[in-house]
């Protein structure tokens, strides 16, 4: 049986492995190779040269990287605070209403990110859904909150909410009610239960949710383009510009490699800490 399992497991992994080898790992290798080519070439037949990486430091690209990481960090912290009560409700309080919230949140995921962000522009712009009605009602308008750093973070929070909410709810569901009850019986306050019982026991969910939303937000670009009006340039935007307007593939590749190293490192760290079989509900 075991020999058969081994053979079938290997065979059935082949379609996906081959797909990822050809269209994920191979392109990554091409990016890595291009990143050590001289500036503005379009073929790999050149002597290696690390000039693109020095451009990262000399031309101030590290600033947009810091902005992207900072905004991702801010949105992750806000998401953690914002989602905790809701995730708690979904895991422990709501019952049937949890299903309603789950379906509503999942359905919103299927609407293209563009359309949802564009909807916020229509909602928040001067003469938009809120300001326009407010002015028609009271007679004086107010400035639109669009086109700033704050609104970009808001956009990140809005778009990546599901990626924090679901892992967090899964994590909180793993906190046994008996343990909380016992802590209360022994005279613990609400804060003590939160800090010493709930947060440590829900840690896997917190880690997965935070990593997912941080990694996705760090690589995001539509929020700063559509809502932020490029008040701040996102790092992913710099990468895109290097490829398209700049026509400088080696520079774009070097910037990509820097991003891949940061995000990939975090993702690998997170994935190695988590037992996938346990989270996805192995029953055996």
């Amino acid at each position, binding site marked *: 049986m075991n020999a058969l399992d081994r053979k079938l497991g290997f065979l059935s992994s082949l379609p996906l492995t081959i797909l990822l080898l050809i*269209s994920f790992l191979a392109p990554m290798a091409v990016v890595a190779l291009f990143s050590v080519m001289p500036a503005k070439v379009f073929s790999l037949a050149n002597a290696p040269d690390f000039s693109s990486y020095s451009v990262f430091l000399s031309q101030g690209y590290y600033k947009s990287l810091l902005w992207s990481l900072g905004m991702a960090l801010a949105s992750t912290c806000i998401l953690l605070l914002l989602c905790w009560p809701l995730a708690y409700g979904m895991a422990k309080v709501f019952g049937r209403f949890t299903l309603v919230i789950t379906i*509503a949140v999942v359905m919103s995921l299927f609407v293209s990110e563009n359309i949802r962000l564009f909807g916020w522009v229509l*909602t928040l712009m001067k*003469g938009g859904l809120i300001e326009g009605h407010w002015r028609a009602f009271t007679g004086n308008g107010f400035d639109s909150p669009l086109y700033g750093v704050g609104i970009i973070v808001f956009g990140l929070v809005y778009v990546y909410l599901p990626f924090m909410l679901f892992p967090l709810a899964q994590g909180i569901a793993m906190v046994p009610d008996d343990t909380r009850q016992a802590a209360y019986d022994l005279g613990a306050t609400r804060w003590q239960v939160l800090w010493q019982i709930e947060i440590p026991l829900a840690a896997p969910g917190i880690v997965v949710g935070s990593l997912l939303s941080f990694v996705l937000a760090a*690589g995001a670009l539509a929020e700063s383009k559509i809502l932020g009006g490029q008040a701040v340039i996102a790092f992913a935007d710099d990468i895109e510009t290097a490829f398209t307007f700049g026509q400088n593939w080696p520079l774009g590749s070097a910037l990509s490699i820097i991003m891949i190293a940061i995000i990939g490192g975090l993702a690998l760290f997170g994935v190695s800490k988590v037992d996938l079989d346990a989270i996805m509900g192995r*029953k055996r």
Partner: protein
Amino acid sequence: MPTSLSTRVVLYFYGVVIIFLLYLPLVSVGFASISKARYLSFPIKRYSTKWYGEAVQSSTVSELLTTSLWVAILVTIVSIVIGFFGALAFARYQWRYRTLFQKLILLPIFFPQTVLGLALLMWFNSVGVIPSWKTAVVAHLVWIAPIATLIVSIRAYSFDPALEEAARDMGAGTWTILREVTLPLLMPGLISAGLFAFLLSWGNFPLSLFTTGADSTLPEWLYAKMVSGYSPLVPTLGVMSVVGSFLLILLALTFSWLIRVNRESRTTQKQKIL
């Protein structure tokens, strides 16, 4: 400790507010799509459905829809096949590199999609493939096939391998077992994986942006119009795309509900006979 009534009320209210905010932008898009004026401003003075008429007649729109639809259909079919086998390798069989395989397929999901799209563009260029909507299918698959695999895996974790072993003991070959035992057991997972694959491909923008070449999908066109030169067709097409997705989800939910009701009524009938 049971949660107090006031806490419950606050939590329910909070949940409703979050869902409201989640859908508020779509309400704005909906209103914008039926505004008569070419340059939108709220409150809307005159309503009209003329932009829908124009969208239906426009040949650009039908081209965009055809491209998006073909990409989504191909991605769905391939994702279901790959997801079926991938899930067996992920969850069912105990083989040597299983944990490595599990980690490999998580990487593309975490990956920034814009960068992935650009990497694929360079890759296609260096092997001499000219990008078109067919290369976009490949790009979508890199991200969607792993997600489909995860969805089918959840189902694959919950089925009992003894069923397959029993079939094998009675002399069934590997293909017969896959067809007669495994496939029917995983069917609900395959259907939801297919649904996810279709919808995610239909709405995807960052992967299509660099990999469609001269062709264009609906989300790409919407984005182009959003960042440069507003067109009153943007909210209209946005609403059409969203309504299409939601109808599909509704159809799938009703269908699965009907199957469940049908199955339950059959079992109760059997119990009555017994």
